[in-house]
């Protein structure tokens, strides 16, 4: 059974803007799934429809077999949502926010208190349980929304940019926590602008652009399709002119180090052999940009150009 199955999903807003244009999407149970796309691509609208915050215009949504049209309560009970914007009562104590959310799912107060304690402790918020939400830092507020989303123990957790504005240490802590709950069986859908985050956490990925899915595949398969990668080479002695190694376009950076684009089939061995022949010593090597980021840009560009050209010809 799929955690989420979407067919022909469309959304046209009252002003005529069509944000989602016929999306088909399957998220297998137990998956850690990335939904990526540029701003305004339709990610948040899709998530809004799945979590009952936005009315769809057409299509079907099923969550663990529950149909959004015929069994909305079943769909809602199966989903935990961590939205992009803070959406809790800023004046309410942290613990009350989590307990109340459990109450909305029909969990009696005593049980709700026990669960709130469990998740607030796991997310390092227990010491702040009596603080008003507005007194928390940005990272704490994000973790509060995760605790709130988990309190009814949903089978599918949807996180819409959960680490936006969170410092690196807390972000890594959140990644570890999410990996743990995924390993325990919770299916997770993640949207993020940090593509490193998606690459680290997710096993499957869908890229959405202009309201359509332009790519859906396993993460490792997708990365294998990356034909070229650009590396930055740090030299022991910076240069004033770019060296020439046949088959490798090398450019000189402002700091005297090198930037080189490597074709996946050619590999890096001949490059290093060439540089060694020239007497150059490379002290370190790194990707110029995250691999997924590079792929993402390629796919979005590829998805846009033909469509724009097509429209131009018509």
């Amino acid at each position, binding site marked *: 059974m799929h955690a989420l199955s979407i067919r022909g999903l469309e959304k046209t807003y009252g002003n005529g803007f069509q944000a989602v244009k016929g999306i088909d999407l399957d998220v297998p149970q137990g998956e850690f799934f990335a939904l990526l796309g540029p701003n305004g691509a339709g990610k948040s609208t899709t998530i809004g429809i799945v*979590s*009952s*915050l936005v009315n769809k215009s057409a299509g079907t949504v099923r969550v663990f077999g529950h149909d959004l049209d015929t069994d909305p309560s079943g769909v809602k009970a199966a989903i935990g949502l961590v939205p992009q914007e803070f*959406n809790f009562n800023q004046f309410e104590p942290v613990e*009350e926010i989590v307990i109340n959310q459990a109450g909305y799912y029909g969990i009696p107060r005593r049980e709700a208190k026990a669960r709130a304690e469990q998740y607030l402790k796991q997310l390092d918020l227990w010491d702040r349980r009596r603080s008003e939400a507005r007194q928390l830092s940005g990272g704490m507020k994000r973790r509060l929304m995760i605790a709130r989303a988990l309190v009814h123990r949903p089978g599918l957790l949807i996180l819409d940019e959960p680490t936006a504005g969170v410092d690196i240490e807390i972000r890594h802590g959140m990644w570890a926590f999410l990996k743990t709950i995924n390993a325990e069986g919770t299916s997770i859908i993640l949207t993020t602008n940090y593509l490193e985050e998606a690459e680290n956490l997710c096993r499957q990925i869908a890229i959405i652009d202009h309201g359509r899915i332009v790519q859906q595949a396993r993460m490792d398969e997708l990365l294998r399709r990356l034909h070229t990668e650009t590396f930055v080479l740090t030299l022991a002695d910076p240069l004033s002119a770019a060296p020439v190694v046949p088959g490798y376009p090398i450019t000189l950076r402002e700091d005297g180090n090198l930037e080189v684009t490597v074709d996946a089939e050619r590999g890096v061995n001949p490059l290093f052999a060439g540089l060694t022949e020239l007497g150059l010593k490379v002290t370190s090597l790194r990707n110029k940009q995250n691999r997924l980021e590079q792929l993402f840009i390629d796919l979005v560009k590829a998805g846009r150009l033909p469509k724009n050209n097509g429209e131009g010809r018509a």
Partner: protein
Amino acid sequence: MNRWSAYWTAFSTILFKEIMRFVRIWVQTILPPAITMTLYFVIFGKLIGEQIGEMDGFKYIDFIVPGLILMSVISNSYANVVSSFYSSKFQRHVEELLIAPVPNWVILAGYVGGGVARGVSVGIVVTVVAMFFTDISVHSYGVTLLVFVVTSILFATAGFINAVYANSFDDISIVPTFVLTPLTYLGGVFYSISLLPSFWQSVSLANPVLYMINAFRYGLLGVSDIPVAAAFGLIAVFTVILVGFALRLLDRGVGIKS
């Protein structure tokens, strides 16, 4: 988990949250009506009232007590729901309810329950204040309590509808200022409509608040400008219409879903 027990838990959670909200800010919610009503009783009841003499066979202060109590109930039931539900839209925590398997009627019942709780709390406080100025006798406990609660439900529901449509804090003060307050003051709180010329008596009959205040006055004093059965009929019709309308707004997601 039994579906109905889950609904009950959700309802009691919303109700408890709403009650805690107005209790937490009691200086803004409970205290002001107590002070305002004390001033009404001192100025209109004692100082001016003793010069007025009797109205409908009662001392003036006894005549205005029912209207002042119900006026507090009306304004506080309305204010509680309109401000609380609009805040939940403004801060977006209404989404906590929209994503949960809570039926719309449970959401409405929870918020209206909170409005009734505040209306009744303030009504009790104002009644206690009134007891410092006059002896309150009750002609019919049944009528009194019924009007007390049903009026509160009606105006709490009206406050909910106002909040659904509101797009700014201005929008939640327009109706109380320009509609509710004039209707209440012209609804016979301070006078019997028998004092008015016949034309204005007829006009007054179009004011629904008049029926509620008179029904409540009947419950306490045993006198009313209009038949009590007609008052109950009108309150019931208005309540059914507003509750139905509020549920329809929620079902369509007006003001809360795109």
